[in-house]
């Protein structure tokens, strides 16, 4: 159960090797001891993540998860929920890809869409089902400002995030009376392994900042969170910039 101060007793991380996922577990480990399930593809990265969670003093197990293998998602998530309630599910998987390749290479575009959008919808439906049966739970999903107004420079990635963002906002409305909370987190540029080697955008944050926002979103049952907060104002301005001008902005 999530207690009155927003401390969960169990967390499922889908995309269990994510830097933001790990930072969030680190933040929780400072005030509570949730049981952790890392869902990720087997391999050295997952082994490393497991060791890191153990190092935090948390009990942890790993389950095999491939975002593209949507047929396997229902059984996987139901079996995790069958062991113990899932208090928080963190939907933390995603691909960034190479922007220019992404719209010109058919396979690359389809992969981005399948992981970031289809995969996210697939787990979302099953998480909503098991959490409605539990009568409680939080689904936290990592969206992106890139989905708020899709821009030329990364529109394949942006469009997948726009789609999953809309799906989860709607899902949150659909399940709120069933005791299930959905938080859509929209970070700006986050300095992680995923963005390594890229030039940081203005208002860039670290994984720990996103983690702090997630901890707060769960505790306060927030539905939409920007990281950092001021991005909300920036994006709401950008959203209304006319297309000819938007095109010329260095974004």
């Amino acid at each position, binding site marked *: *159960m*999530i*207690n*009155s*101060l*927003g*401390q969960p*007793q169990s967390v499922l991380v889908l995309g269990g090797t994510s830097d933001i996922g790990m930072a969030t577990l680190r933040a929780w480990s400072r*005030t*509570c001891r949730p049981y952790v399930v890392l869902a990720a593809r087997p391999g050295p990265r997952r082994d490393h993540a497991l060791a890191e969670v153990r190092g935090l003093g948390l009990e942890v197990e790993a389950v095999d998860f491939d975002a593209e293998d949507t047929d396997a998602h229902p059984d996987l998530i139901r079996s995790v929920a069958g062991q113990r*309630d899932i208090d928080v599910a963190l939907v933390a998987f995603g691909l960034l890809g190479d922007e220019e390749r992404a719209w010109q290479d058919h396979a690359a575009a389809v992969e981005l869409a399948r992981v970031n959008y289809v995969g996210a919808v697939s787990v979302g439906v099953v998480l909503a089902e098991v959490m*409605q*049966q*539990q*009568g*409680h739970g939080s689904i936290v999903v990592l969206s992106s400002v890139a989905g708020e107004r899709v821009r030329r420079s990364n529109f394949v990635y942006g469009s997948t995030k726009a789609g999953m963002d809309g799906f989860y906002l709607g899902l949150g409305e659909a399940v709120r*009376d*069933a*005791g*299930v909370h959905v938080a859509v987190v929209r970070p700006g540029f986050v300095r992680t392994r995923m963005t390594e080697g890229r030039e940081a955008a203005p208002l860039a944050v670290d994984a720990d900042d996103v983690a702090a926002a997630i*901890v*707060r979103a769960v*505790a*306060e049952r927030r539905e939409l969170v920007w990281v950092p907060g001021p991005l909300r104002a920036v994006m709401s301005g950008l959203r209304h910039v006319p297309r000819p001008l938007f095109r010329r902005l260095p974004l």
Partner: protein
Amino acid sequence: MSERRLLTGWGGTAPTAASTVSVAAADLPRVVTGSGGRGVIARGLGRSYGDAAQNAGGTVVLPLPGWYELDAGRGTVRVSAGTSFHDLMRELIPRGFFVPVTPGTRYVTVGGAIAADVHGKNHHRVGALGGQVVELELLGADGTVRTVGPGRDLDLFWATVGGMGLTGVITSAVLRLLPVETGQMVVDTERLDDLDAVLTRMAESDDAFTYSVAWIDTLARGRSMGRSVLTRGEHARREDLAGSPRHRADVVPHDARVAMPSLLPPHLISRPTTLAFNEMWFRKAPRRREGQVQTVAAFFHPLDGVRHWNRVYGRGGFLQYQFVVPENEDEALRRILGRISRAGYPSFLAVLKRFGPGDPGPLSFPMAGWTLAIDLPTSPTLRGFLADLDGLVVASGGRVYLAKDSRMEPGLLAEMYPRLDEFRAVRARVDPGGVFQSDLSRRLHL
């Protein structure tokens, strides 16, 4: 009749959804035996602060309109579990009786009060409610109703008293009553300047009064740390009211005429507002006043005067931290109060009470010693702060009250309640399939 609903405790935190049912007693066994994997729990009026009367994904049984049969000769009442103390008092006072123990609100049901083994301002004299229960009817996991009491299945009886509803659904109880002549109280009030003064005063002279409690200013620091307003009282006899026609003997509590609005500015309860309120409250109390006549409602249940008073804490809700430290652990109490006052969390109306000996319930909260209850708006910094206080409470041999808890670390439970295994053994015997469950039982692995 079943309806899916979001439920919280009085603190308004951690909502969860359950299927709520409101059915006649005759149909309850079917509800219990057919409750499915996530089980069932009985709920009263939802005044437990935390998640004791929630059951996420399962079934929650709501209270039915009450009935009672008074046995004036024996001085007992047989009453349905869903009856509120409010309704019961309104019936009993004109007939010359009072409930043996009342918590700080009348809006609790008899069943809920037994399940939490509630205590009142007279704990130092009569103990908690459990000691005043002659017998009770308990609907078990197998769908049968058993009569249990101190003389019939003692273990199950005491596991049910304070058992947070996890041994079955209490359907009715026989309570011993207190004969009274009026619905008024005679109250002595005094202001005490620091913690030493109030502890000494209570330890020395509480036994001369049936009811005793202190309001303590948890924000006062330094020399005035622990400054308190101590009120003690007795039920007024007719002769106490003679010559003052404005104090009617037959007065009974009534429902509040005012309600807290549902839309309030945020952060009403903050450090500045609480400092100001506490200062005012302390100053307005008389240094010493004896023999003041007050109604039962004003003396026992001041907060019941405003419906939905919990709304003052806003959307984020609040929690109550109530702990007890054993007698002779004044030092632990002083250390904990020091932490609270230094941290400066805003708490209105913190309540300090000297407990008499506890009762045999393995999960019953009271034990001989000092109990303090503080209301706190939820905030992230409370996580570490209250965990530290838990540590001090456990180290002193004390415990926190499960009817108030909404955030405790489950690993501490066995230290706070050393007879937890006895409770679990009774549960394993009467409910091997774990039919009775609640968010509290899940969260604390009860």
